[in-house]
């Protein structure tokens, strides 16, 4: 995994030193809030509803155990004993004191982490597949490329004041676990004539105007990746609208100018700047990065204990059925640790849980941990034979909820419980839905289902690409929840369709239950998933179920 070099260390130390001085000057009164605000945002520090919030980047979702332990330490020492993992592979601390933040940043730097470009109109944390380098379906590990992009984009002088924030996601697998089509740039690794390159997608995004990205070039060879990205971001920097914040994202640029025009400009810019890039040096650097991400040595292991446990222990079997994914190496598995206990806050982990997971990663998973955009943690390389012991340890810590990919594995943004922009709460809605499907013992019967909740139209909770999406709004001073159906964040990404009028806070859980029961009635058989049934039948039967009782109530 990537280790900071001397340059990185010096750069971060200098940034932190600057920020410490800026905090001091804010407190002694020599900086006004107006002057200080952009400076704190450059370091990931927001002011939210109840407190400051520090957003720390977890590059492409990869952590080592020392880093996770340090994140836990920060939660203990400077926060309220927990952290919140987000859909953008960040961790957010919800309660730091302003005066402690410089110390927190120094503690992060000790383990090669930072909060730079986690806010502001810059290229944000590059996100990736949480199963990178482990997934059986992968073409190649996307992370060396993600790291290359991170180094290119961090402190890039031209791209610190873009028209708006800019998000890049990269996947090395045809099964897209990084929602590439809902990013400003999505990169999908492909192979053409034996050569690795990228299909480049631009102009995806959620928020107030959700859009699925479009393919701007179906093959960019590895050697051209950085100049091609630079050409896209540079073109956007010139062409993107600065007159209206809501029309400033590249999705609007592509929409208003047309893909053809944007493509022509990008290609022309690419031809112009490509010669300025030293392809040889990049190739050499990439080769070094690939060494840092070299595939771990996974010696053959017996798997008898795994099969025994499956046979005799139903709890283990249920967990294994939902929380494991196929590994490329025989005898190994990818383990997703659900941060969605029924009734818990989606994405939260306590300091003790983080420390335990770091220890378990050391014991069973080569010290590596991943953060998924679905707000779970992942141990990417675990021998099948170690799974029963791992499961036991997770279970003892309340970390063995067998619900990955099911109805209670809900993405929820912080909503009005933390976020200053929110129009309604998200977290308690997620908690209640999860508790309800658990009480009814429905979710294993329902099978694969993605419910996603946002507390305002910014769509941080990805509700547009939820199979069931929930958007919290303010209707005349009361919380109201709108439902979308049929969204999909996979390689076949689709924006969901709004069903109709929203539901009051105390009506949203019953409304979701009606959709779920309609699906159980309508599906061909257990093998037809919710999304498949929705695609076959369309929205009408679900809408009928959703609004039927409302009409009765009104009558």
């Amino acid at each position, binding site marked *: 995994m990537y280790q900071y070099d001397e340059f990185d260390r010096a750069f971060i130390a200098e940034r932190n030193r600057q920020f410490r001085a800026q905090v001091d000057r804010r407190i002694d009164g020599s900086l006004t809030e107006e002057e200080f605000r952009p400076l704190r945002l450059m370091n990931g520090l927001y002011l939210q509803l109840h407190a400051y919030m520090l957003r720390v980047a977890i590059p492409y979702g990869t952590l080592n155990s020392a880093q996770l332990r340090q994140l836990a330490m920060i939660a203990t020492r400077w926060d309220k004993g927990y952290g919140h993992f987000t859909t953008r592979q960040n961790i957010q601390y919800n309660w730091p004191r302003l005066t402690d933040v410089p110390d927190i940043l120094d503690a992060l730097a000790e383990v090669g982490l930072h909060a730079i470009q986690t806010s502001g109109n810059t290229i944000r944390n590059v996100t990736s597949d949480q199963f990178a380098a482990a997934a059986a379906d992968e073409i190649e590990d996307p992370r060396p490329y993600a790291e290359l992009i991170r180094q290119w984009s961090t402190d890039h002088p031209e791209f610190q004041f873009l028209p708006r924030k800019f998000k890049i996601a990269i996947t090395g697998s045809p099964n897209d676990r990084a929602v590439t089509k809902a990013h400003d740039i999505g990169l999908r690794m492909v192979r053409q004539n034996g050569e690795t390159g990228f299909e480049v997608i631009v102009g995806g995004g959620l928020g107030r105007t959700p859009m699925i990205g479009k393919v701007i070039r179906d093959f960019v060879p590895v050697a051209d990746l950085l100049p091609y990205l630079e050409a896209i971001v540079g073109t956007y920097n010139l062409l993107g609208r600065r007159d209206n914040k809501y029309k400033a994202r590249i999705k609007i640029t592509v929409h208003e100018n047309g893909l053809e025009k944007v493509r022509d400009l990008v290609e022309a810019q690419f031809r112009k700047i490509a010669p300025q890039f030293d392809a040889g040096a990049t190739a050499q650097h990439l080769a070094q990065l690939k060494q840092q991400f070299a595939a771990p040595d996974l010696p053959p292991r017996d798997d008898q204990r795994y099969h025994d446990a499956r046979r005799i222990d139903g709890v283990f079997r249920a967990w294994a059925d939902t929380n494991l994914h196929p590994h490329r190496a025989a005898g190994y598995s990818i383990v997703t640790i659900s941060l969605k206990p029924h009734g818990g806050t989606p994405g939260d982990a306590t300091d003790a849980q983080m420390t335990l997971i770091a220890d378990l990663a050391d014991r069973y998973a080569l010290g590596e941990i991943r953060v998924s955009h679905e707000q779970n943690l992942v141990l990417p390389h675990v021998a099948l034979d170690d799974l029963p012991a791992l499961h036991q340890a997770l279970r003892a810590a309340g970390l063995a909820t067998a619900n990955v990919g099911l109805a209670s594995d809900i993405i929820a943004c912080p909503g009005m419980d933390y976020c200053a922009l929110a129009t309604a709460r998200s*977290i308690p809605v997620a908690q209640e839905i999860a508790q309800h499907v658990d009480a009814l013992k429905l979710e294993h019967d329902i099978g694969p289902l993605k419910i996603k909740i946002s507390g305002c139209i910014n769509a941080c909770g990805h509700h547009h690409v939820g199979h069931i999406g929930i958007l919290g709004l303010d209707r005349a001073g009361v919380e109201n929840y709108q439902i979308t159906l049929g969204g999909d964040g996979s390689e076949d990404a689709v924006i969901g369709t709004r069903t109709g009028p929203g539901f009051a806070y105390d009506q949203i859980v019953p409304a979701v239950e009606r959709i779920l029961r309609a699906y159980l009635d309508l599906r061909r058989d257990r093998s037809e998933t919710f999304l498949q049934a929705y695609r076959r039948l369309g929205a009408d039967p679900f809408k009928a179920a959703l609004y039927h009782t409302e009409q009765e109530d009104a009558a």
Partner: protein
Amino acid sequence: MTQATPVKVVTANSLIEGDVVWLAKDGSWTDSLQSANAFTDKADAQTALEQANLRQNEVVGCYLADMRLGPTGLEPAHFREDFRRRGPSNYAHGKQSQG
């Protein structure tokens, strides 16, 4: 329906802690809504806000929040101010923990 009087309070986040505070009658910042100074007169509220805005080394983001003054004291007119008063719903470690 109710005899509650519409009033305004000055609210902000404290500079160091970031937590929600209200301007009290004695001019200090309080973390209890019930101690907030309730303005019935719009011009008075506006003046208090302007003065509060000058206290940059104590607070961030002052604004006037709508409240109702009823028999039990100050009640937020909008649910956002209710959450600001109570703290987050998922853990009792915001203002809830202060009783």
